[in-house]
């Protein structure tokens, strides 16, 4: 048991270490949401004033948690996909041949990627004062575990996918066909309340929708824009973590 905990710890630690060492990645991870928030957000917000119906300011505070979710989504997913990278460069073999169980490897990897994604997601909070959004300290405190849970759900999906992936090319395909639709159909960028019915159904099948919903409720501090009840948000997100982690472990355990 102790052996497994050390295994989980060192796999987690490697992720953290590599994150803080990779400066371009940290800068990039701040720059991308900044562009989304400041350029796209401000642009869209002002366009609402042209087409009538004010609410530009409200749109920004609507979009803000969505951008945090976006950062978490991309970071957690890419972290999980580094497994494919490790496979191509051989390092995965070193991990797989060790006496640490596949279960611990998957858990360590998930916790590592989730921690990094959480840190990156929370960094976005520094933009709040710039675009003049008020967030209470209580909300920030609540946001920490919520962000971590959402990150874990994305990580577990990513790891289960990476378990069977052998090349980085396949990863590109996944990014376009899974990651992007997941992002656009999660309610991160625009409200789903008035969306067409078909889109609402797709959003319901998208695990990220619940994560975004949960993060938005916490950041705004009210249930005004809520899509689903909070217990459902938590249940679905946690459910994804459990189911996809079990799947990921099973896939890693399957040997030729």
């Amino acid at each position: 048991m102790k052996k497994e905990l050390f295994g989980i710890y060192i796999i987690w630690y490697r992720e953290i270490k590599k994150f803080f060492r990779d400066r371009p990645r940290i800068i990039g991870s701040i720059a991308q949401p900044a562009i989304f928030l400041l350029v796209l957000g401000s642009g869209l917000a002002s366009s609402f004033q042209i087409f009538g119906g004010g609410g530009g300011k409200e749109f920004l505070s609507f979009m803000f948690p969505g951008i945090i979710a976006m950062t978490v989504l991309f970071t957690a997913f890419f972290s999980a996909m580094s497994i494919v990278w490790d496979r191509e460069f051989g390092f995965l073999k070193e991990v797989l041949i060790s006496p640490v169980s596949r279960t611990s490897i998957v858990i360590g990897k998930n916790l590592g990627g989730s921690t990094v994604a959480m840190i990156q997601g929370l960094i976005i909070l520094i933009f709040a004062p710039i675009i003049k959004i008020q967030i209470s300290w209580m909300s920030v405190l609540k946001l920490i575990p919520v962000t971590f849970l959402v990150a874990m759900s994305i990580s577990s999906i990513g790891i289960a996918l990476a378990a069977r992936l052998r090349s980085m090319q396949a990863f590109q395909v996944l990014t376009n066909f899974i990651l992007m639709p997941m992002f656009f159909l999660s309610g991160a960028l625009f409200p789903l309340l008035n969306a067409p019915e078909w889109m609402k159904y797709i959003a319901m099948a998208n695990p990220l929708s619940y994560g975004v919903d949960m993060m938005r409720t916490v950041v705004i501090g009210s249930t005004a824009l809520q899509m689903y009840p909070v217990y459902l948000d938590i249940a679905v997100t946690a459910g994804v973590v459990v189911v996809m982690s079990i799947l990921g472990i099973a896939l890693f355990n399957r040997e030729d």
Partner: protein
Amino acid sequence: MEEKLIIEVKNLVKKFKNITAVNDISFTVKKNEIFGFLGPNGAGKTTTINIICTLLKLNSGSVTLCGYDVATEKNRIRNCIGLVFQDPTLDDRLTALENLNFHALLYNVPHRQIKERIDSVLEMVDLLKRKNDLVRTFSGGMKRRLEIARGLIHYPKVLFLDEPTIGLDPQTRNKIWEYIVKLKKTNDITIFLTTHYMEESEICDRIAIMDEGKIIAMDTPDTLKNMIGLDIITIISDDNKKLKDYLKEKFSIDAELTKNNEVRFEVKDSAKFIPYFIRHCHINILSINARKSTLNDVFLSLTGKEIREESANKKDAMRMHMRARARR
């Protein structure tokens, strides 16, 4: 006197779809010996190692290491083996120290000993000064040395080295072999290696020669060489056919015409044979070449082919095959 066995392989078979990579082999490795697998690429050496190391499942037969069964006691086996693969498996964005630390924790090395053990293995492979450098700044030879060091941190009972010198320059190759010999002298360890370099396998205590999934010979390098025990002479002449007949008639030697248009045969003592031969032979000789037999000759006489001639295609075929399989 009965020697202790550390690895026992019985009737091992491994198939990849329609290719039989390992075809019913049996062998044992004794404790504290250097045991080598020699053979062309694609002979099944790596596949066998991967099965012993629990990386691949076997189709039939049985394999035990330190008394543990590969099929049922994977984690126990993983605990007592160290591995150096053909392709590098280091994280090159971490430093040498971090790579070793990672390994030490994965293998549950006692905390108090980690630092000391890391320093001592790094010292052994002359990398102590580069401890805090990123692995990506290392040369190929340094990476291989670091991997050997890493494979030793958890004090494995058996160290597997799969083509430890592949892709390295001759100087570095010699260095690596020096480490391996030193390692065996100073540690209580069994070393299991594969190579397709004949010269290198001569440091082994025992060698198994593999070809097309089978072990075709297994003994000490000297005994294997003595299987031929003769000098090899190759002659190029104006009329090789005639020369061949002449050798048969006069010396009752069964010479062989090679692809390179040479006549090749073995004699007990080339130093005495050649002057006598030259004096009596009336066929015009263009060149004559004599040398001591090597393991390559052993391989040649056992399989009728050079160990290296088809390396490239066979290796590629095997690699492609493995990749294709892996994608599924």
